[in-house]
């Protein structure tokens, strides 16, 4: 058997080795488990490593020994964010209120990944109910950055990002409501995809903001993200917002025909010098390759974050009403039913979750609905229309993924400071568009930057194509 080099291993290279019968799935799973045992106490990427992962690996080995052709993700060990249900396993959303909750069924994405041969290695840490940009809001302690323990890995899918970047799995799944896949991908030097709204089923994803949530992969390469997306996307009767994924039928343009749109004024304020420098250097490389880099006007782009902080808390306050201690969670005793609700929710939810529930309740209150929620929904619709106009002029919109590299644990002291970490990623969620974060160099201390591409709806193929070109620069 060939010795396994976890650092250089990708889904594509694993598949080659598996096809040549020079590796065993069970050896790979053992190697990851050994590394997790060594590193996880420092990184806190995993909340739990599943005992049955090795059984699944042995089943894959048997299938291959029996002469069967490996499936597309055969034996690929994946880290799964702790808000995606896996039947029989605890799924806590990193919240005390669901600390002992075991899933009654598996998410559609999990079923599809298993059918493709993938192995669920464990569940990963996150900001509680996906509310945060640093993974500091977990009820089970923060996750650390894979290369610098004083820094955050980003969030809310920070556990998965650290697990992939520290070679504690081959790839992983996160969920992206405002940038929760792409921003940690940027901080950890990975590829992170937020699919088009409706491309991937949300059945079995613990809902945060239902009109914005999408599940997406975090991987080492663009080809790996494509391999996972090709398995998990498509219509699902259990999520009525999914559609039959359209075949684009469009010929991918040559690089010399590519038009990249850069929103005017976007990186003038609040963006670190190194992020700005790496971004403009990459634009120069695209120009050198023959692409056209075109300034575009998206006047409402900067309003997307404000709209998000109305729409998202409004949906949070509704979605999280179900967690009241009656059906899912540990219950705190009270004299009346109302008191039990209040005590259970007060004790079970963390500070950021409580803040967003209160904010959501406020913006939906009588007298404030028109001033806030209706205005935010209007902004969303106008921004969506603006993007549609822009995509008649350019093939993709490009921005940095995040305004800074990974910040220090405890650095963001006010909620608003933390929210601004999503300034570049949130427009794609608000407009329902697919977007990908690609590694884009490092800062002076070696922390990664990200380059974001946003495409028209259901043009993930274009993102993968451009992403592979970007990797060659």
């Amino acid at each position, binding site marked *: 058997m060939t010795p396994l080099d976890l650092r250089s291993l990708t889904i594509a290279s694993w598949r080659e080795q598996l096809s040549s019968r020079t590796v065993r799935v069970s050896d790979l799973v053992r190697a990851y488990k050994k590394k997790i045992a060594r590193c996880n106490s420092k990184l806190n990427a995993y909340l739990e490593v599943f005992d049955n992962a090795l059984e699944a690996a042995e089943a894959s080995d048997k299938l291959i020994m029996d002469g069967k052709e490996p499936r597309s993700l055969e034996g690929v060990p994946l880290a799964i964010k702790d808000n995606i249900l896996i039947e029989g396993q605890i799924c806590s959303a990193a919240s005390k209120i669901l600390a002992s909750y075991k899933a009654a069924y598996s998410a559609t994405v999990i079923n599809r990944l298993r059918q493709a041969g993938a192995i669920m290695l464990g569940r990963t840490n996150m900001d509680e109910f996906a509310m945060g940009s640093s993974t500091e809001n977990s009820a089970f302690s923060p996750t650390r950055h894979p290369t610098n323990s004083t820094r955050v890995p980003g969030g809310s899918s920070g556990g998965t990002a650290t697990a992939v970047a520290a070679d504690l799995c081959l790839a992983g799944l996160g969920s992206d409501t405002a940038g929760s896949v792409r921003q940690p991908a940027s901080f950890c030097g990975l590829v992170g995809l937020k699919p088009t709204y409706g491309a991937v089923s949300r059945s079995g994803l613990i809902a945060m903001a239902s009109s914005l949530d999408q599940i997406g992969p975090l991987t080492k390469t663009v080809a790996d993200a494509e391999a996972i997306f090709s398995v998990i996307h498509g219509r699902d009767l259990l999520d009525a*917002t999914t559609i039959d994924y359209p075949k684009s039928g469009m010929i991918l343009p040559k690089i010399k025909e590519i038009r990249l749109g850069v929103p005017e004024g976007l990186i003038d304020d609040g963006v670190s010098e190194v992020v700005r420098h790496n971004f403009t250097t990459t634009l120069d490389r695209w120009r050198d390759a023959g692409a056209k880099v075109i300034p575009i006007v998206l006047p409402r782009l900067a309003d997307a974050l404000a709209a998000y902080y109305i729409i998202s808390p409004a949906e949070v306050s509704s979605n999280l009403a179900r967690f009241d201690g009656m059906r899912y969670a540990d219950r705190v005793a009270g004299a009346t039913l109302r008191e039990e609700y209040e005590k259970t929710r007060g004790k079970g939810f963390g500070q950021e979750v409580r803040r967003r529930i209160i904010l959501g309740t406020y913006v939906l209150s009588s007298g404030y609905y028109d001033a806030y929620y209706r205005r935010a929904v209007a902004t969303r619709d106008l921004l969506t229309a603006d993007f549609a106009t822009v995509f008649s002029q350019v093939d993709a919109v490009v921005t940095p993924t995040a305004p800074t590299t990974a910040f220090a644990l405890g650095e963001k002291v006010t909620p608003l400071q933390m929210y601004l970490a999503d300034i570049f990623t949130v427009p794609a969620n608000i407009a329902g568009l697919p977007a990908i974060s690609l590694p884009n160099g490092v800062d002076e201390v070696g922390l990664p930057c990200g380059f974001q591409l946003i495409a028209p709806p259901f043009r993930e193929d274009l993102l993968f194509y451009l992403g592979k070109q970007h990797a060659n620069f």
Partner: protein
Amino acid sequence: MISREEVINLAVLARLNLPVSEVDKLCHDLEAILGYVARLKVETTALVTVSQVRTLADNTLRVDNTPHETGVYTGCLLAMSPKQCDDYFVVKPIFSNDAT
């Protein structure tokens, strides 16, 4: 300005016990967040017309049929609840709620 009373009332509406020590901080945080989101200036005409724009996130309802065999999940769902009896969740009397 958001008052302490408003925050306490919102917590009641949200059925959420708030630590007393958190109320002042929440007043301050909400003030800052609402100050930021107040930047949204949408013309009244736009508010009327945008509802006609169909977006990817428009609400879609699942077909009202039976997605799985009745009762197939009953056992495991009940097992996850804090208190159950036979095939029911056990909760306190609902009408006593009004007395508080």
